[in-house]
């Protein structure tokens, strides 16, 4: 759809939803990674408006209550998972079958690379018995899609999936009823496949979904839960399927927010402070006046140069003369951990069992240590971008965002519009990883568009992207633990600060244990700048610490690290993924350091169990590490699209090399020293290990796949480095300097 078409949609029929039902106390709380501390009122469409616009056909809509119920019933039992869900709204998914048999589903989820544009239609088509090619998906448009809390936390497949399948199953049963009437055959005698229903006894008596739908107008709200297919009945789900958006993405047709062009649009360059916390003392924008076509806008705290050419806007902004009061830096990337230790908020015991004192008494050896990780940037290749257009009192914003409805509310608040007069459209998003739950660029674009009465694009420079990012917080984990003479862990006392509890609770079989989690501090001022959710928030930190520490204990016990883990595990799923990975890798028993450069790590994230084994080569002189091979095994329940799942695993493994080896934000107080990719090093092609992935065959409900495999990368590399050199690194990233220093400390 091109932008003009979007605008044709009439805003007239958008109203705010009725007040959401008060939070049901029996529902799980909002996840910690929610972009909003409180779920705002739904500002999607009223059902009747939405339905009216779709014209004829069959429409099924499903409410969130059904979603949460479905999610609760489908959630597998086990440890390490937290309740999620709990968002307000009247309805949350639509499915429309048009008179020509064409199926469209509408979702507030967005496509940023993780693949729902392929996997959601796949699930839908299977449940509906419709040809995949007839299924379309409309994503992330607040005027066309039902309210959604945002795309993060690996929730799309797990929680939106069941809802969509329920809608599809309901549609299918409506179609079967219609076919039964039209063919005069009881529904039980009918077969549905590929969008056609026929009489089992006489195949020539058949009718297509299009024929059944044509000229009708059926609207149905799903009541109760329809019977879903079992995995054995799936024809499309579980089969490898190529991405549906590739043809547009390889030809340049795919549009991202920065690619939308409107007549008369202007590009904004916004004045930024040199450091967080800096106060503007004086500003002189006079030099900009010599630039033809440049327009300076001051709107509250926002000072921007607008021009019809983005590069000219930027060059003109550079002429602005400013003086700032920059607060004296009190911390930097080296001293930050001392500061954070002092600033650490109160913790909460999130798991506990046995008696730690008893455990200490039973310990033959005690192993204590601390683990640190630095701030990490999201650095999506597409910087935060938005185009805002004000027309007839209504604001339309195309934004690269992970939560279009959150953006809608923020924009409405900032420009003083009722949310129903703000429409957010999410074109393709060029990567998010948690960072695009923050929508300041969309708010700025809307404020500027309102100020000048013309469409305005805001596209952050790379320097702004680093400066305004909500970094993964620096964090500290302290662990005390002990083993008995047989290599059994007898106690475990774990304290994490600034990473939160995701992945903090250990899954080994330990009689005496306690896990204390202190929050991430995303909203506190302990950090010198904004922090937030970064792919698998908290779990990268927690898994790095836990799995490094498990290896330290294995070494102290003089036992092979995989044997040591198996000795201390009773969790059947973890044992299975670990053994699968070990088999695939060809692991043979040896205690570490074996000089082979092998490392192992296990983790649980988003309902998925994962184990990884890596082989590294270390150049002791330069401190450089080359990860040569990574084998990862994952149990993620039923796999919807194995190809998509493997891609996500490979992506996690490759991306995870960054936070393991090089990625760290350099700063002095509120000044971010990294302004581009010269100092902030992303993983490169030349870092690429041979990656092998294994998916455990499972019929359990599908779990998240976009995040789990990244959580093990810090520890698996740290453990392999230790195995290669005998040097143990306690801080991420494991830069050449840190590794050289650790090697230098080894006894000769």
């Amino acid at each position, binding site marked *: 759809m091109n932008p003009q078409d979007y605008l044709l949609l009439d805003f007239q029929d958008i109203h705010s939803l009725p007040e959401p039902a008060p939070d049901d106390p029996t529902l799980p709380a909002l996840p910690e990674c929610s972009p909003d501390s409180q779920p705002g009122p739904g500002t999607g469409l009223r059902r009747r408006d939405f339905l009216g616009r779709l014209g004829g056909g069959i429409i099924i809509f499903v409410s969130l209550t059904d979603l949460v119920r479905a999610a609760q019933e489908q959630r597998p039992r086990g440890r390490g998972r937290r309740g999620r869900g709990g968002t307000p709204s009247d309805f949350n998914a639509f499915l429309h079958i048009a008179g020509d048999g064409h199926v469209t589903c509408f979702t507030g989820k967005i496509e*940023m*690379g*993780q*693949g729902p544009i392929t996997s959601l239609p796949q699930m839908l088509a299977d449940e509906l018995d419709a040809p995949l090619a007839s299924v379309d998906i409309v994503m992330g448009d607040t005027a066309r899609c039902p309210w959604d809390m945002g795309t993060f936390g690996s929730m799309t497949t797990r929680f939106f999936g069941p809802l969509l399948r329920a809608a599809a199953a309901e549609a299918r049963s409506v179609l079967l009823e219609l076919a039964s009437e039209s063919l005069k055959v009881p529904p039980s005698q009918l077969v549905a496949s590929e969008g056609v229903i026929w009489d089992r006894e006489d195949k020539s008596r058949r009718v297509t979904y299009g024929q059944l739908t044509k000229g009708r107008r059926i609207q149905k709200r799903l009541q109760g839960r329809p019977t879903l297919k079992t995995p054995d009945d799936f024809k499309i789900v579980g089969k490898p399927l*190529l*991405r549906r*958006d*590739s*043809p547009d*993405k*390889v*030809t*340049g*047709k*795919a*549009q*991202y927010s*920065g*690619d939308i*062009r409107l007549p008369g649009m202007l*590009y904004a360059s916004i004045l930024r402070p040199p450091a967080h916390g800096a106060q503007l003392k004086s500003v002189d924008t006079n030099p900009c006046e010599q630039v033809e076509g440049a327009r300076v806008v001051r709107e509250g705290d926002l000072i921007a140069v607008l021009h*019809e*050419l*983005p*590069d*000219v806007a930027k060059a003109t902004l550079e002429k602005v003369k400013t003086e700032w009061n920059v607060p004296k830096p009190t911390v930097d990337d080296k001293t930050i951990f001392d500061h954070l230790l002092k600033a650490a908020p109160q913790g909460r015991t999130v798991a506990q069992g046995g008696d730690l004192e008893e455990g200490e008494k039973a310990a033959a050896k005690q192993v204590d240590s601390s683990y640190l990780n630095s701030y990490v940037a999201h*650095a*999506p*290749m*597409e*910087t935060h971008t938005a185009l805002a257009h004000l027309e007839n009192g209504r604001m339309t914003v195309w934004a690269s965002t992970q939560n279009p409805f959150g953006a809608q509310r923020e924009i409405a608040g900032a420009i003083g519009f009722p949310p129903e007069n703000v429409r957010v459209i999410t074109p*393709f*998003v*060029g*990567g998010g*990883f948690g960072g695009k739950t923050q929508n300041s660029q969309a708010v700025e674009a809307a404020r500027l568009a309102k100020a000048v009465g013309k469409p305005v694009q805001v*596209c952050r*420079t*790379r320097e702004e992207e680093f400066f305004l990012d909500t970094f993964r917080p620096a964090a500290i984990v302290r662990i005390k633990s002990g083993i008995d003479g047989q290599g059994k862990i007898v106690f475990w006392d774990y304290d994490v600060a600034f990473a939160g509890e995701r992945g903090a609770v250990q899954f080994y079989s330990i009689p005496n244990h306690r896990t204390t989690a202190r929050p991430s501090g995303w909203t506190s001022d302990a950090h010198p700048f904004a922090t937030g959710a970064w792919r698998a928030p908290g779990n990268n930190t927690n898994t790095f610490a836990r799995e490094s520490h498990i290896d330290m204990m294995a070494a102290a016990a003089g036992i092979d690290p995989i044997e040591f883990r198996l000795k201390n595990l009773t969790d059947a799923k973890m044992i299975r993924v670990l053994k699968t990975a070990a088999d695939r890798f060809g692991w043979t028993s040896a205690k570490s350091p074996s000089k082979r450069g092998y490392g192992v790590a296990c983790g649980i994230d988003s309902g998925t169990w994962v184990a990884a084994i890596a082989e590294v080569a270390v150049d002791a002189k330069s401190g450089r590490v080359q990860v040569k091979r990574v084998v990862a095994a994952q149990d993620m329940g039923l796999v919807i699209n194995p*190809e*998509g799942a493997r*891609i996500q695993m*490979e*992506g*996690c*493994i*490759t*991306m995870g090399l960054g936070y393991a080896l090089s990625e760290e934000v350099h700063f002095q107080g509120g000044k971010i020293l990294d302004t*581009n*990719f*010269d100092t902030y090093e*992303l*993983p*490169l*092609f*030349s870092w*690429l290990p041979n*990656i092998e992935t294994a998916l455990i065959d499972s019929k359990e409900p599908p779990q998240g796949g976009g995040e789990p495999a990244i959580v093990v990368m810090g520890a698996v590399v740290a453990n392999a480095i230790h195995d290669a050199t005998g040097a143990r690194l306690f801080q991420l990233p494991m830069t050449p300097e840190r590794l050289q220093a650790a090697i230098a400390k080894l006894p000769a």
Partner: protein
Amino acid sequence: MLETISFKLNNKPVQVRTDPKRMLLWVLRTDLHQTGTKFGCGEAYCGACTVLVEGVAVRSCFTRVSRVRNKEVTTIEGLAQDGKLHPVQQAFVDHDALQCGFCTPGMILTAVALLKDNPHPTREEIIAGMNDNFCRCAAHTRIVDAIQEAAAKMKGNA
């Protein structure tokens, strides 16, 4: 300061009247509405803005528009011929060699230039040739696979 600059864009002659010192990236994206070429860093690090000038991969964010005067420029929009994807594009589709797709135009054009210089690259040569293109979604493995397959299919016909 304004000059008229003519060049060939995707086989069609184009003319722009602009400051010759402007970077090609912005002229393509803004003046000529060819938005397939992406902005990733603006300082020649990431490769998202890669285009071909006379068949050579260049970073358009760091190339003045005056440098392409009377030259032949190919962007991602011009790579497919007569509705048929270039073998490198096709291989990216067949290998799912992308996720968000934002780095993809630059990756593909870099690979096309690479195969022109070296039609039968080893895996190591592909990795070395692509090393300055960044992909945050980390589709690296499949990008290498795709380029290898494209090379095999093209049998030296770059």
